[in-house]
């Protein structure tokens, strides 16, 4: 039993933290150059063959720097679906790993509970498929995006890859409240050929589940980084801000609330580690139970730490421009995602 990072992992952490701290305009390109996009993929597919612990390290670093990247949707959710597909599409994976083709994860639909059959429909036609339906909250959709779409075909789950520029695909753009660019993507009688199918029936169901579990693990670690950033900022504020002739840190009610933040953060950190160490567990029942527990603990911590950080910052904490206000919105979104699964 040990919780230490290996030398390579420590180096990866260092690299990621430095890059995210700079937050360059061409972040995605830089991530590709540094091999970060290739991390979880098999070496045969142009990847680095790294595991969930490395992904956790990247997620935590991104959270800590409060950067918004397409990593969760593209590499983690869509990437997991590609990578774990019954026949992994090698060319797609290597283009994603190289940062050449942006994939996006198109799963959420209006009025759907998590795990429910998707209302987006695929019907077979002349050896291919015709897809109709609507997806919401598809994030970081580039012009040349390829969408990994969950749908239902003849009462069974199906997962397909549909290029954004296919005939009948349209988008409406907006932003999520954490600042992430998002789109509502509609499919109207979109015709794709048989090679678009990643998985069907039970295999598609498993693939969707696995993608969502990896997403939970990533977002949990991202939340840990965010909570650490908010706690650090809060401690700094408590030490420097003075009221009634004393630093805020002299007031026990505030000290105790900061202690509560640490307790919640450390519990969440434990769960982010557990998620990384469990997300590849072949025992499905144990893995599902663990992921559910991760969601419960991390969601609760996001709320506690986010709300306390804003409260302890006082007025400045509710301003749009302050990192703590933004961090709170990021954590709130993760909290909601953790609740829905």
């Amino acid at each position, binding site marked *: *039993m*040990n*919780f*230490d*990072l290996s030398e390579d*992992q420590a180096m990866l952490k260092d690299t990621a933290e430095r890059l995210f701290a700079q937050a360059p305009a061409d972040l995605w390109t830089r991530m590709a150059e540094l091999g970060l996009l290739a991390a979880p993929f098999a070496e045969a597919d142009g990847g680095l063959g790294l595991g969930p*612990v490395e992904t956790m390290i990247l997620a935590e670093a991104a959270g800590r720097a409060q950067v918004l990247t397409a990593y969760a949707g593209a590499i983690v959710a869509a990437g997991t679906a590609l990578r774990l597909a019954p026949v992994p599409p090698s060319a797609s994976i290597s283009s994603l790993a190289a940062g050449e083709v942006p994939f996006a994860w198109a799963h959420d639909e209006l009025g759907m509970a998590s795990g429910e059959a998707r209302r987006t429909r695929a019907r077979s036609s002349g050896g291919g498929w015709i897809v109709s339906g609507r997806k919401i909250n598809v994030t970081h959709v580039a012009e040349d995006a390829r969408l990994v779409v969950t749908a239902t075909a003849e009462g069974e789950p199906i997962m397909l890859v549909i290029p954004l520029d296919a005939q009948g695909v349209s988008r409406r753009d907006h932003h999520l409240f954490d600042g992430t660019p998002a789109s509502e993507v509609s499919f109207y009688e979109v015709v794709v050929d048989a090679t678009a199918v990643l998985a069907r029936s039970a295999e598609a169901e498993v693939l969707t589940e696995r993608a969502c579990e990896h997403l939970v693990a990533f977002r949990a670690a991202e939340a840990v980084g965010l909570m650490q950033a908010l706690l650090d900022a809060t*401690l700094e504020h*408590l*030490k420097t801000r003075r009221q009634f002739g004393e630093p805020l*840190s002299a007031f*026990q009610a505030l*000290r*105790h609330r*900061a*202690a*509560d933040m*640490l*307790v919640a953060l*450390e*519990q*969440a*950190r*434990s*769960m982010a*580690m*557990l998620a*990384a*160490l469990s997300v590849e567990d072949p025992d499905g029942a144990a893995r599902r139970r*663990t992921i*559910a*527990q*991760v969601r*419960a*603990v991390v969601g*609760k911590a996001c709320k506690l730490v986010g709300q306390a950080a804003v409260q302890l910052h006082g007025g400045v904490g509710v301003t749009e421009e302050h990192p703590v206000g933004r961090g709170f919105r990021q954590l709130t979104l993760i909290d909601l995602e953790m609740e829905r699964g």
Partner: protein
Amino acid sequence: MDLRFSPEDIAFRDQVRAFVAQNLSPETRRKVEQGRALDKADVVDWQRTLNRVGWATPSWPASAGGPGWSAVQRYIFMDELYAACAPEPLSFNVSMIGPVLIAYGSDEQKARFLKATANLDIWWAQGFSEPGAGSDLAALSATAVRDGDHYVVNGQKLWQGMAHRADWMFTLVRTDPNAAKKQGGISFLLIDLKAPGVTIRPIITIDGRHEVNEVFLDDVRVPVGDRVGEENQGWTYAKYLLSNERTGIARIGMTRRILARVAEALSSVEAGLTEAERARHAAEATAIEAELRALEITQLRVLAAQQAGQTDPRSSILKIKGVELRQAASELLLRVVGPIGYAFAYEGQDEAPSEAASNYFTLRAASIYGGASEVQKNIIASSVLGL
């Protein structure tokens, strides 16, 4: 990063599991499982059973007659005891006074006390708190005045757990009322509870049980040789004792046991729950379980740091969260068992049909003793967060 125990640790776990299964009396097991009070004989017998194989003092080094286990082995050992519904070794002896004697006792004290402490031939009580000194322990006012080769001790001690079963009490007294800092004038004395001038009075707590006492010390003569370490240095030894008391105190296995009773009660018809109530309680149990799982990992992380020789002030997190979850589980159990849980066994009466109420009331004290949760938060704020 790897959560798995080593093959050696797993072999050790299996060895402990087999020993406990073979040696724990079914009656003691039943009491622990149901949260019932243990008789003195239950505790003594179990302690001696463990001591026969050298396991009664998990944290003691081999040089002091302990098993010399690693932090991980200690964790595994305690975890197995909880899982098997076995009592913990008596903490007053094993976690509190033992390590202090090992670290600071004279050779004569070690020879006289350590073996008897491990075997529970001597049952120790803790004489720290007073009516005017709880969380602010250094405000204590019991005095010890030197008279030849004795101290004459006067004062009142409060909350002595199981002192009515105890033979000796380790005690903090003020030996220098003029010390510049109040922590500076305190000494650490071992007091024979059979000595003239010692009066022990029971306090019945809200759980209906007699566990704690108040101890009056009236002109009690204590040989100078029964002082631990230097005069006026007692605060140092007390702090050492308290830090040992607080580590590994998450008691995850205990909470698991309460949750097992919740699961049992949820599926029993006696509880008389509607489907909506059952679903609400089940969701609450699931939430506690998730937090408990996280705490288990947190505990292992602290353990890994200890194993690497670092002291981790984050152990305060274990105390705060561990108690919070144990209290939440006991409250849930009380709500789930239904009307059968209203019956109560007052001290000296027969067993009640359910111990849910007793356990709930007992555990309210858990966030007060061993460093109240508010004190733990102060420790986190200053030692971990640097506030």
